[in-house]
């Protein structure tokens, strides 16, 4: 999905259309190459179908037992053999969207700065640490989050509760440090490098004459960035954000270490809550009976479904954006 988003950016502005491959090639080498690439493409598609099929097969026992009530129930009880997943779905989505709220302005802001404001020779020096950050394993983020970030978040929570406790989002039953807020912040930190790196690459593809033309017409620098560069790159930037969202929803290790992992519905930013991916990872090893395993796979299926829905919405939005009907930055 993400690759297509980026591709579509590169093709939006350019006048050249991709020339469709000619299948009636006669040269042997060409035919061989065609067959080889075709096989690889089919393997990828086959893998995707096998994955869905296997998820369904694994989850079948749970689907038969709980049906769609699995999606709206709030109990996860391995002892009484009752499973449903609403609190974790909400927890996962809320954490991912708050993470986006925090990460998007920072990422796109820094991408703009790197692309337009600093001298060319300085770019790699600023960009390199960001790319380095993107390669840090999530367990490292998790441990850092647990030992360093959570105490800081907890101090912030105490202050928020004391001063803004009347606001429902800051009205937790107690101040644990771990919870929705910590989970969101660690996710934001983890997705900033990806969104920044992709956004920077996209902004660098904005043709300079467009910006220079704007400047020539008397616009200030920020006006030309705001009114030309960003709208020009909007599809790609949107793709970068969706890429970050994808990582935030699927993140497992770091978010389980700071998320509090409760199975209750959340009411405030301070409540501890589980994420779907971390729930699967942390309970799978000790899931001792088949309905339990099947329910965890069902959670995986739901997570897969959510990812597909988000990706479809993103595709639709990109399609609208690239046709010019909707423009985010205008």
């Amino acid at each position, binding site marked *: 999905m993400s690759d297509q988003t980026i591709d579509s950016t590169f093709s939006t502005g350019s006048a050249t259309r991709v020339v469709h491959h000619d299948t009636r090639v006669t040269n042997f080498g060409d035919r061989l190459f065609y067959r080889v690439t075709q096989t690889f493409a089919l393997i990828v598609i086959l893998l995707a179908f096998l994955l869905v099929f296997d998820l369904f097969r694994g989850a079948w026992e749970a689907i038969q037992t709980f049906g769609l009530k699995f999606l709206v129930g709030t*109990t996860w009880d*391995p002892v009484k053999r009752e499973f449903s997943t609403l609190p974790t779905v909400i927890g996962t989505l809320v954490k991912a969207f708050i993470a986006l709220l925090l990460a998007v302005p920072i990422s796109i802001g820094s991408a703009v700065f790197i692309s337009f404001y600093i001298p060319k020779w300085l770019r790699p020096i600023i960009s390199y640490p960001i790319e380095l950050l993107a390669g840090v394993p999530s367990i490292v983020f998790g441990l850092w989050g647990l030992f360093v970030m959570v105490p800081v978040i907890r101090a912030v929570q105490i202050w928020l509760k004391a001063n803004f406790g009347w606001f429902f989002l800051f009205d937790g039953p107690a101040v644990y440090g771990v919870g929705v807020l910590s989970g969101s912040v660690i996710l934001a930190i983890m997705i900033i490098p990806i969104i920044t790196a992709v956004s920077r690459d996209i902004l660098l593809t904005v043709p300079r004459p467009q910006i220079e033309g704007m400047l020539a017409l008397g616009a200030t620098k920020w006006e030309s960035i705001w009114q030309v560069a960003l709208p020009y790159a909007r599809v790609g930037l949107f793709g970068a954000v969706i890429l970050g969202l994808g990582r935030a929803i699927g993140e497992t290790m770091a978010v*389980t270490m700071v998320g509090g*992992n409760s199975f209750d519905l959340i009411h405030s930013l301070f409540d501890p809550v589980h994420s779907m991916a*971390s729930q699967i990872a*942390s309970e799978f*090893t000790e899931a*001792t009976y088949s309905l339990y395993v099947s329910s965890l796979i069902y959670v995986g299926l739901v997570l897969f479904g959510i990812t597909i829905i988000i990706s479809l919405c993103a595709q639709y939005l990109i399609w609208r954006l690239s046709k010019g009907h909707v423009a985010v930055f205008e």
Partner: protein
Amino acid sequence: MRVKKMLLGFAMAALSVSATQVLAAGCPAKGAKELTGAGATFPYPLYSKMLSEYDKACGVKVNYQSIGSGGGIRQVQEQTVDFGASDGIMDEKQKKEAKGGAVLHIPTVAGAEAIVFNVPGIKRSQLKLTPEVLADIYLKKINNWNDQKIKALNPSLKLPDLAIAVIHRSDGSGTTFIFTNYLSKVSAEWKDKVGFAASVNWPGDVGGKGNEGVANSVKQIPGAIGYVELAYASQNNMDWAQLQNKAKKYLDPSLDGAAAAADIANLPDDMEVMITDSSNPNAYPISGFTWLLVYENQTDPVKGDAVANLVWWMLHDGQKYAKPLEYAPLKGAAVKKAEALAKKIKVNNQMVLK
């Protein structure tokens, strides 16, 4: 001539090496060189030490993967490993699904869990808790450290007005199995509302990933209480509570307490017993065995011989590695019963160990 002599020398050397290996107690006699096992994470540090020593003593490489008790049980059922390991007992349904017939539960060591807390001004061993109060705290019926029930047990302590934050494991674990099994034994309400398993539907509050997750939340949140393996609590200098056992004695968690919990007269022969809330007057109540899961009837004579000898070695020579790694070695009645179980291992209806 010289070549012949050299060959002879080599042969002698080889013979003497194999002779010493055969002489060493608990080494397989039928030439097995490799075994695989999988299961519980709790005994993993001990097993990896034991197994590397076993390799040195007998020249048998044992590959143990700590994939969790549930995984260990599944692998044993499917016969993909030579032995499994678990912190919990297989239930009837799981036993039925085992493809190789009857599975023996052979305990190797015992362990204890500490109740750790973070209450300003109160240090290790100062806080006293009864099973009833601990259960009420985990049921969220006691919410504050200045609750009358806690005060009554600790008249000399200055207990603050501080909300109790209950911390538990969020990942499925044998540690949770033992802890919830204990609460189910001491509280009818817990047994009814929550029950026991590797992962349960907790009444509250925060789930931490692994011992380190629980320990960190306890350290960072004033008013927190949690349960972690004894080794983890003592290595991290955590404050723990004294817990009242069945004989009404308040005890710190200790290896001796765990060993005592396993040393009781009425241990069943199959050793499929949770030793939580033990009747031994010196027993620390939140203690548990960790078991090896071995098929009683082995199909492969070479592997069967090797597994039986490995078990025997772990029950005897291997035990000396337990204490330094903070596991409680078996003692008294428990050793005898475990030996009897190891002797039950058969190949083609022939006992392996004599």
